[in-house]
């Protein structure tokens, strides 16, 4: 069943009225094409009004929409062939991070992504897209494999955060994420990062360091989720909308802040309204941006990446007075 978000209700109501009008016209045989086209025009306007003026919190809701395409949907849609690989060669195989080898046009790449589930069972199986250290270490193993085989890395970010569990702490969640940041900074092959849903804090960044960072239009990327931020700073989850605003977590905000490189537009109403169009766009982006990156020698690519991250952040630099 299609999930309706609260702010989408006026659209659904109007769609209902249009359907009802059509049904009546069929039953009575009356010509209502004028009033119908007026209603349809109104619907288009309403959709634009609503979807093009989304508040930060509404974007968060869209980023979490249960019908949104997930990492494996992207991977299977954009690759002509894909073989999933498992395990960190150490402790296990985290189901919240998937990865493998895929072919996209003339390119073979290592693809890695955080994976959410669609029903109760698969959501639990995927741990709601919240990785454990095994997931980050599997991702790192695959990235090192990519480096050895001289293949680019493409990652898909969609996580509410690294899992805050006892096992995760025992197995070094912090170390696993830190190690990935360290290794990704030096990886001698291009890395493309697509934020396709939720980009929550260190859990997202753990597979999110790259040469090009893209954010889909209705996704969020920040240091903390709006709910957690609200519960800390406002002492209540009730203030999540305020926190979402304060955090500047939208794609437009992140582009302005210089933490991402590009925004990829979504169909009106979100990626799930027309997944095929979104897959096509992501694939085109990969095919367009990989060749120039692949032509850069590793000896130059790594310093460029370091320079990219060195610039990130905002501060004031007091010049010494004369």
């Amino acid at each position, binding site marked *: 069943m299609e999930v309706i978000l609260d702010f989408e209700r006026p659209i659904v109501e109007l769609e209902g009225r249009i359907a009802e009008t059509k049904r009546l016209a069929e039953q009575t045989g009356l010509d209502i094409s004028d009033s119908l086209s007026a209603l349809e025009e109104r619907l288009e306007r309403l959709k634009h009004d609503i979807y093009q003026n989304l508040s930060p919190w509404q974007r968060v809701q869209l980023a979490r929409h249960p019908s949104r395409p997930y990492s494996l949907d992207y991977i299977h849609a954009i690759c002509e062939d894909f073989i999933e690989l498992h395990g960190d060669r150490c402790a296990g195989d985290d189901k919240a991070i998937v990865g493998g080898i895929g072919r996209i046009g003339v390119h073979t790449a290592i693809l890695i992504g955080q994976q959410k589930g669609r029903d109760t069972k698969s959501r639990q199986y995927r741990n709601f897209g919240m990785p454990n250290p095994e997931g980050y270490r599997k991702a790192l193993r695959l990235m090192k494999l990519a480096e050895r085989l001289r293949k680019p890395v493409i990652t898909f970010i969609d996580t509410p955060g690294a899992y805050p569990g006892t096992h995760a702490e025992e197995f070094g969640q912090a170390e696993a994420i830190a190690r990935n940041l360290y290794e990704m900074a030096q990886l001698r092959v291009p890395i493309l990062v697509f934020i396709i849903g939720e980009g929550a*804090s260190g859990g997202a960044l753990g597979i999110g360091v790259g040469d090009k960072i893209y954010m889909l239009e209705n996704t969020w990327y920040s240091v903390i989720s709006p709910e957690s931020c609200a519960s*800390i700073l406002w002492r209540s989850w009730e203030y999540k909308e305020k926190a979402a605003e*304060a955090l500047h977590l939208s794609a437009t905000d992140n582009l302005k802040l210089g933490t991402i490189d590009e925004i990829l537009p979504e169909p009106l109403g979100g990626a799930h309204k027309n997944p095929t169009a979104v897959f096509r766009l992501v694939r085109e982006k990969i095919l367009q941006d990989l060749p120039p990156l692949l032509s850069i020698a590793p000896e130059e690519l790594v310093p460029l990446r370091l320079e990219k991250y060195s610039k990130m*952040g905002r501060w004031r630099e007091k010049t010494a007075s004369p």
Partner: protein
Amino acid sequence: MTWYLRKEEGIRTSPTEKIGAPDGLWVKCPSCSKPLHIKELMQSQYVCPHCSYHFPIGSKEYFRFLFENGEHTVLFEEIEPIDALGFVDSKPYPQRLAEAQKKTGLSEAVRCAVGPIGSHTVAVAVMDFGFIGGSMGSVVGERIARTIRYAAEHTLPLLIISRSGGARMMEGSLSLVQMAKTAAWLAQYAKTGLPYISVLTDPTMGGVTASFAMLGDINIAEPKALIGFAGPRVIREATGKDLPPGFQEAEFQLDHGFVDLIVDRRELKNTLLRLWDMLCSR
């Protein structure tokens, strides 16, 4: 991410300020309740001589007992915080920064310096928990990145002493990417062949643990320091279980393989010197 957590646990006091209070020549050890004279405490690197409780301290105190005669040159103080997001919660971020600066006398949550420790010249960064929970925003990330770079360019051993609740919320994703920036510079520093020693003190959490603090060539923890990614409260909420005693403490991290050594602060300088003597001899 979680800089507030220890405050909520009700464990943390701000003893440096208490210690520094003009009328407070005597302090009570929060662990064994014995009265301690401030001079005695300073001579024991702020460790209780009776029960070995490690008073939480900041950059001033570490600089004083690590550098020879306290002699050092402070680096990168010219990098100052700004309110890039226009962040307002219970108070505007600029006000929060100004209050933290006034309260601590510091410009940000990390101080960086270069100076002599034993026969070595060392680049050092020490975090100050008193400044917005030692949280890492753009300035902490940038100062640490530049200290790493400075150490690499001057071929100096690198020491970072962490004490932080994690990344700073008031700078949103700008704080988050500091994790990547500092880790990237450490990866660059590794090429110098010099050691980076990370000292994790109580508490070191969130995005700080998950970046430079866990990436030491040698990770040293102070006894009983809380070290982890997620805070205890968050873990309890996620799992619905109480945490066993000692969970995420230094000894737990040693047993699970994430720190090399637990070193009493009174032995810290000596341990660092032994390591540098072996690793940095020409």
